[in-house]
């Protein structure tokens, strides 16, 4: 389902609106945590207040655990998330400048805005200084560029560099965070000389720690991707559908739907390779090669309840395989062209229609007449004129571009 904007659930034009809403929330949380006070932030370096470390570390491990759990549940597509590439030199230089500014001004960019909003004069100065910095950076960008973009390491991950799995890293990070909380609390107590009564009256942090450690353990024990999803179709249901031939649609019906042209309720999907598709395909068909079938671009096509999707290939083998895979994924309106293109040509053009009964009845005569008509229709090339607009879904792909901004 997620991420919502790149998947097209939310219009990218609403980006700024959501940025505004999230910004409001973020600012209010920072203010709640007391980050508008430069004393609190500087406390990190002097040892009397570690709340900055605790808040950011908690945010990081909570987000991490949630992301991994949601991705396991299939609520977020992990592969679509944007990962900031690592530029070695700009990371080091930026880190040094940021740290110096932090210890000197007592703010980081986000908290300086919060401080400025509630009217702190030092925060206002910090805020304007930041703008001067942005201006200078923009002005002299050309001379900085080689450093700024130098030594691009790409999208590297800490767990890859350490040679451990993502889940192990997540679990270790949770443990490290919890231990860091305990140690920093102790350092705070020693520096501030907290009286024993205050120390003992602190609320217990057992529950939140327990939840985090439990989630970490769960992620370790579960496979990285679930084998089954709850929305998938049971093997026995699929088997009985195939055994009862419910998954077939016959050549006559497809011929009829092509001849109907405009009133298309059937979307023909060619699962053969692109070369065969280029050479020949049925009118109005779209090409989704079998090995590409799970690409998320096609989801909106298969999920469209207004039309039946008919899969076809040369024979019915590949189409049936595609059908099985899609049916397992939980799509319902799926059919296979019985016998594939070979049988289609056979029925419409080659075989003479011979009714099974000796005395053809009304239905047989209709079938015979329909096939003659269809044959004429296709051989004279009428099929081309009629297909004006088979319902073609519009797919939006949001390409994510490398940002030139960032940092906290």
């Amino acid at each position, binding site marked *: 389902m997620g991420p919502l*904007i790149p998947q097209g659930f939310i219009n990218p034009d609403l980006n700024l609106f959501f940025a505004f809403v999230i910004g409001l929330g973020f600012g209010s949380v920072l203010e709640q945590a007391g980050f508008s006070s430069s004393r609190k932030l500087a406390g990190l370096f002097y040892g009397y207040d570690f709340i900055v470390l605790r808040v950011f570390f908690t945010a990081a491990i909570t987000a991490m655990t949630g992301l991994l759990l949601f991705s396991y549940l299939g609520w977020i597509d992990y592969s679509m998330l944007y990962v900031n590439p690592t530029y070695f030199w700009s990371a080091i230089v930026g880190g040094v400048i940021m740290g110096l500014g932090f210890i000197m001004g007592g703010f980081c960019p986000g908290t300086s805005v919060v401080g400025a909003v509630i009217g702190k004069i030092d925060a206002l100065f910090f805020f304007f200084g930041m703008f001067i910095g942005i201006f200078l950076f923009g002005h002299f960008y050309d001379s900085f560029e080689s450093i700024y973009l130098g030594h691009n390491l790409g999208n590297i991950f800490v767990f890859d560099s350490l040679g451990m799995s993502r889940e192990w890293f997540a679990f270790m990070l949770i443990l490290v965070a919890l231990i860091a909380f305990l140690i920093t609390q102790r350092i705070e107590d020693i520096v501030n000389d907290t009286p024993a009564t205050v120390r003992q009256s602190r609320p217990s942090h057992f529950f939140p720690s327990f939840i985090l450690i439990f989630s970490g353990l769960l992620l370790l024990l579960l496979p990285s991707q679930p084998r089954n999803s709850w929305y998938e179709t049971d093997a026995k249901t699929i088997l009985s559908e195939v055994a009862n031939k419910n998954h077939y649609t016959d050549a006559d019906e497809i011929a009829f739907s092509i001849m109907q042209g405009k009133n298309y309720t059937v979307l023909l999907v060619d699962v053969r390779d692109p070369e065969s598709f280029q050479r020949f395909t049925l009118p109005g068909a779209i090409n989704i090669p079998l090995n590409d079938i799970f690409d998320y671009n096609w989801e909106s096509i298969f999920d469209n309840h207004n039309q039946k999707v008919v899969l076809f290939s040369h024979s019915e083998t590949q189409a049936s395989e595609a059908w099985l895979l899609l049916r397992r994924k939980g799509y319902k309106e799926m059919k296979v062209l019985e016998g594939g293109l070979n049988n289609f040509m056979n029925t419409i053009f080659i075989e003479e229609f011979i009714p099974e009964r000796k005395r053809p009845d009304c239905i047989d005569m209709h079938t015979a007449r329909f096939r003659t008509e269809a044959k004429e229709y296709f*051989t004279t090339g009428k099929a081309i004129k009629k297909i004006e607009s088979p319902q073609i879904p519009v797919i939006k792909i949001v390409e994510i571009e490398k940002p030139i901004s960032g940092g906290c």
Partner: protein
Amino acid sequence: MKDTQYKLLNTGAFLFAGIVFLVMIFQYFVGPKYKVSSAEMLEQVENQQRWVMPADLLSLVESNRLQDYLLVDLRNEEEYNRGTMPGAVNISFDKLLDSESLKQLRGRKDIILFSGTESQASLASLLLAGKGFKNVLVMANDFSFIKESVLEKYKSSNAFTHSEKAQYDYPRFFKTSPIEAKQSNASKPKIIETKMIVSGGC
């Protein structure tokens, strides 16, 4: 005051995590039980090693190694009685996932499936793969073809024949197909690309 706030936060976090865990447990029990994921099933589909082509079958027959395999005839009993491969057992397709049939197949490493249609045999192999069977082979072509063109009268031109081949020159039937091909190529889904700039930081 601070205490109650803290308790509220605690309960909130606990409730949220509890709901997520409950959903996980629920999803686990509601979902069907496959032993392989759909992506692995797709790999299985793309794996060309699982096909027993006519040439392979002939070499198995000639070298008398066909007995090493468990041949499974997926057609119904009537068709099975009318004639089948030597040494084949009958498990009709609609009974494939019954516990008896699975017991019969379980533990056997070399299974070759064949059926009245190639597609049915292939689907059966995928369903078995979903049940955790590995290396289930599928005989290419329909059984009637196998019987006539491989077992009775083998032609070397049929060595790599399988159903998934074009039997006709299709454009012959559709008069203006070159234009057609172009048109349908244009009717691929319209893809609108939007560029989005992500900026991060706190």
